[in-house]
């Protein structure tokens, strides 16, 4: 399989050379053709800058970017067969929906009739038949997002970039769009690269993902891999908010004296007598599908996820903790 996008030692520094702001710092990255790739990270971690480096709105200060094997260092955005769904959708307010969708074809000199037909096809693809004559201002947020998607896809891009595509939608719509985007991607077979700060979204949608932290990639892998085996403390905490155990606590939990992660759903709360690990309940948060119990022991706080229906301990009570030793993941990386 060819790489759709390849970063080698790519950096994007802003500001003066003696004290640069390293938005992206020496990133190596390979995105396989036809994959659904997520760039996950908190704000300011460099994920959006990476997306803009692919589209060409940012120029790297170091390293090379290849799109389908071709070095794009010298290629302006309009010649890259890569399209973006912008975070604010960036629909043209003075054009109706049909002209918005047909815009990419219009600037390539496609005649009006072909372009209108193609625009209608794309609107049907995103389930917006009959909306062609409306202005973007007359659409809801979810509909605008679909128009933005249709406008990008009409160009048959080699790579589709999505910048926080679901950020502005409410929860119900977001979940529906997640399924739709996923279905659309597997139907069209286009490489999708999407940026998000929502780890749930990244885990549920992506084939593989890169976790960004401070301009560097903390870990790349499949969602299951990254979730089960976080490489660093940052990844463990950011993806699924795991319990991050310092070396001495790990040893108390029966592991080697190293940093480790233990998923809250892997912990069981038991009676306090006759177990190796016992502590005091310090917090309790009701989550609907279960409860999150915080237990203080060995000078640290550990969170456990209780499925709904199980008895919930009182704050201040002494409880025991049990887990499958295989669930304790020892991390190799630092930071």
């Amino acid at each position: 399989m060819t790489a759709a996008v390849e970063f080698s030692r790519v950096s994007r520094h802003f500001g003066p050379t003696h004290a640069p702001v390293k938005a992206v710092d020496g990133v190596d990255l390979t995105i396989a053709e036809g994959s659904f790739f997520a760039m996950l990270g908190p704000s300011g971690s460099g994920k959006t800058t990476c997306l803009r480096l692919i589209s060409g709105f940012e120029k790297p200060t170091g390293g090379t970017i290849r799109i389908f094997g071709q070095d794009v260092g010298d290629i302006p955005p309009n010649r890259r067969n890569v399209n973006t769904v912008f975070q604010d959708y960036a629909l043209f307010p003075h054009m109706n929906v049909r002209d918005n969708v047909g815009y990419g074809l219009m600037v390539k000199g496609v005649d009006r009739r072909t372009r209108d037909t193609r625009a209608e096809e794309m609107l049907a693809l995103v389930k917006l038949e009959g909306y062609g004559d409306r202005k973007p201002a007359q659409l809801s947020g979810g509909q605008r997002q679909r128009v933005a998607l249709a406008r990008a896809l009409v160009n048959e891009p080699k790579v589709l970039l999505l910048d926080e595509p679901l950020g502005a939608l409410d929860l119900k719509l977001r979940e529906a769009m997640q399924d739709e985007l996923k279905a659309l991607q597997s139907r069209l077979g286009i490489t999708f690269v999407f940026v998000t700060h929502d780890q749930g979204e990244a885990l549920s949608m992506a084939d593989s993902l890169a976790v960004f932290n401070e301009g560097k990639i903390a870990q790349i892998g499949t969602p299951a891999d990254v979730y089960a085996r976080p490489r660093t403390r940052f990844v463990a905490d950011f993806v699924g908010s795991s319990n991050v155990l310092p070396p001495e606590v790990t040893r108390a939990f029966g592991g080697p004296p190293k940093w480790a992660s233990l998923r809250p759903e892997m912990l069981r709360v038991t009676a306090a007598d006759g177990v190796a690990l016992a502590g005091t309940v310090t917090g309790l948060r009701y989550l609907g599908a279960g409860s999150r119990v915080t237990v203080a022991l060995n000078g640290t706080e550990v969170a456990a996820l209780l499925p709904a229906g199980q008895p919930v301990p009182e704050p201040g009570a002494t409880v025991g903790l049990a887990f499958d030793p295989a669930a304790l993941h020892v991390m190799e990386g630092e930071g």
Partner: protein
Amino acid sequence: MTSPTPAILPERGLADRLTALFWRHPRVLLAVLLTPPLLWLGVVYLGSLAALLLQSFYSIDEFSGLVKQEFTLKTYAELFRAQNLDIIIRTLLMSAAVTIGCALIAFPIAYYAARFARGKWKGIFYLGVMLPLWSSYLVKVYAWKLILAKEGIITWAAEGVGLSMILNAILAIPGIGGNSLSTSLLGTFIVFVYVWLPYMILPMQASLERVPTSMLEASADLGASRAQTFRTVILPLAMPGVIAGSIFTFSLTMGDYIIPQIVGTSARFIGLAVYQLQGTAGNIPLAAAFAVVPIVIMVIYLMIAKRKGAFDAL
């Protein structure tokens, strides 16, 4: 608790009473705010406009020179006499040329200010654009007369770099040329463009500022060249600002009667014609009819602009 806070705070006098009044009746505040300007606009402005319109339907008695206060279209018919039509067409062409000239010069400046200028540079931009408005308009026009005069700095500079030939060739163009720049219609044009430029830059800059960067990126992302982005995205979105600016430059040029008197030929413009008709000639009806012309032209201009979709982005 020693002193419990009340659920309802006591009223603290007039300011609180007024706040309560405006809260209970939001329209009262609107009425208070709008009445003075509406009185001013309605009575003083629209009233005088109506008086003007009324005057233009009177005529002047050719023997006594007195105004006959009866309804007639005779005065309007006079506008179509060759010499008057000449004035109208000349003014229209000059206003159009000045507007286009201002738009061409203003656009790059406004674009720079809206897209790139930040912080200190934005302040410098505003200062630079508005500074000329601080000094008297007459001083500026007389300064230009000296700059454009035959013994002026432009002629001198052209001689210095050996471009006199070109200057003379330009001045030899019939219609816009003349003895020197300060006595040619080209000179009038240059001064008009200079004087009205800020009125074009500021609304243009305001409208360009409202075009989000992501819109330009989206256009490039979809394959548009810079020229295509300009034509299909920037210009249509900036159009309300361009139109607003052009209303200023167009109507200010149409009504001005000072610049053509100081810089230019003896050819008359509408403003000058109105000034002379109501002053020396005492022909108020014809002056009023002339004054109606710019209003009619502006209305037609705005109707065309609206039909062309210039306000779609508003």
